């Protein structure tokens, strides 16, 4: 009996270790990571660039959000934000925050902003990607920490993606870095393009995105499943009727209440199934399409296009590198072989 039990635990440990290694460390093509870098870079660049007209209005001397205000908020609220309404709970300044924007005003603030934009451009293009990926994360987090009350759901999602893109070899595909390396290869200066062939670190980064995004999906579903507004089929109506935030007025749908119920349940059950079925090879393409369509339809209703874009972008971590290569062929990508 003891021998059988020992055997079972040995097998369990061995299988777990092997599956763990397969899951996290099997080398993979960094194509998905590279494509994500370009798309996340563009969205992050857009969001940070959109601060340009309001830079002084928010963060300048005499701006709407003086640094003193953040400190006062943190001191008055402490770290215990549970009693705040959920809608603003995660926009309250936290104890541990760093933003280089705290230390600059006037011309220096503008210079810092322009430098941040330059970093994002270089990151998106894949120039010195290891360096610019880390710098992009710092820049993006600085804006988040400087004005937490200005953020919506988009920013935490992009911060998450930028963090994992900085960890993995996100510059190993669709980048100037990869292009330069290929050129050196052709000239015989290097024997292979660093990082362009399958890399375990590409797998680690893409897996972290997948797991973290699944956690986001689970929480999104749990929050909706436990809420009466979504359970009674009126969730979408409460979004449609927010006249100040929506992009298009679809309140005429009140004449079709069953359609509103159906739309609500489609969102509810679509999002509840997504974190499970996205891990299945067969259902994954379907779930990715459902997810994209769902957010494309919700985007004009919630009036937050960047959030919809970030949601769709994060789900692209589940697209196989082979498909990315087919859709976005890179010149001389086979030069590594």
């Amino acid at each position, binding site marked *: 009996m003891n021998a059988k039990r020992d055997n079972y635990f040995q097998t369990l440990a061995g299988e777990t270790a092997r599956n763990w290694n397969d899951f996290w*460390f099997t080398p*993979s*093509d960094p194509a998905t990571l590279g494509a994500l870098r370009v798309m996340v870079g563009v969205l992050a660049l857009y969001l940070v660039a959109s601060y340009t007209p309001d830079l002084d209005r928010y963060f300048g001397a005499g701006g709407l959000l003086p640094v003193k205000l953040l400190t006062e908020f943190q001191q008055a609220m402490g770290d215990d934000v549970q009693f705040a309404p959920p809608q603003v709970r995660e926009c309250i300044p936290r104890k541990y925050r760093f933003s280089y924007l705290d230390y600059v005003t006037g011309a220096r603030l503008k210079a810092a902003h322009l430098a941040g934009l330059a970093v994002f451009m270089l990151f998106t293009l894949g120039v010195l990607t290891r360096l610019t990926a880390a710098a992009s994360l710092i820049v993006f987090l600085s804006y988040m920490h400087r004005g937490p009350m200005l953020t919506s759901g988009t920013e935490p999602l992009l911060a998450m993606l930028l963090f994992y893109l900085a960890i993995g070899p996100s510059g190993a595909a669709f980048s100037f870095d990869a292009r330069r390396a290929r050129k050196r290869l052709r000239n015989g200066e290097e024997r292979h393009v660093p990082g362009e062939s399958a890399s375990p670190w590409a797998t680690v980064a893409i897996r972290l995105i997948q797991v973290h995004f699944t956690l986001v999906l689970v929480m999104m579903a749990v929050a909706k499943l436990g809420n009466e507004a979504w359970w009674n089929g009126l969730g979408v109506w409460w979004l449609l009727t927010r006249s100040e935030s929506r992009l298009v007025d679809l309140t005429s749908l009140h004449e079709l209440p069953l359609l509103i119920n159906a739309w609500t349940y489609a969102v509810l059950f679509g999002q509840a199934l997504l974190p499970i079925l996205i891990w299945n090879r067969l259902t994954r393409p379907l779930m990715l399409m459902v997810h994209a369509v769902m957010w494309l339809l919700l985007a004009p209703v919630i009036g937050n296009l960047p959030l919809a874009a970030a949601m769709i972008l994060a789900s692209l971590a589940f697209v196989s590198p082979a498909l990315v290569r087919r859709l976005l062929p890179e010149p001389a990508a086979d030069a590594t072989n």
Partner: protein
Amino acid sequence: MRDETSSPASADERRLPPNWLRTTVSFLIVVHLFALLVAVLSNWNPSALATRLRQKVPLVKPYLQLLAMDQSYAPAYALTFAMPEDTDMAVELDLNLADGSRQSFSLPAGDVWPRVRRLRDARLAATAGDLTGETFRNLESLLPQAIAAHFVAQYGAKGGTIRCMRHFLLELENAASGDPYDASRYLKVYEARILVRGGNVQLMKMEAAAEVAPAAVEREKP
């Protein structure tokens, strides 16, 4: 667990990192995922255990907060709970300008391009409006005061009033006959008189029946 997203190479082509490196990275992955789990559990209807883990496990809180991962991801992505806070909020100011005229401002303002700028102003107004009431006595004037100070400085105002207005939504059953912009659908959740003294802006909160002492910034929690 294996699937096509990782495009596994054949066994002989596999270039796994050395054992010690895999062990180290695995440990870091486990620690990171543990921190994420703590963040999710402690930010959304937390248990005593989740709260304690967040407070007591060294480095978890700074790590999560610095990376902006101290999130439950529930409220932001649930989109609505049909609660009073899931309504639109606006901060309105009536300023007395130096030339004796009176000018009104609103946050968020009307048409702003790109739209994400308006979204930010709307978030700011929502935060100001949602943190009002008895529970937030010591917080509720902080953001309105900063907003008032900004507008006073920008327009050289001598005083005025600031208020947070909640716009209640139209129920489905009333959609056919109801007016979403009817005055009865707006609720003043906060109002204060703006006092400008020696360049400093103070707010004197106005209650429904009477005015009260200046909304001082207290230090203790609500």
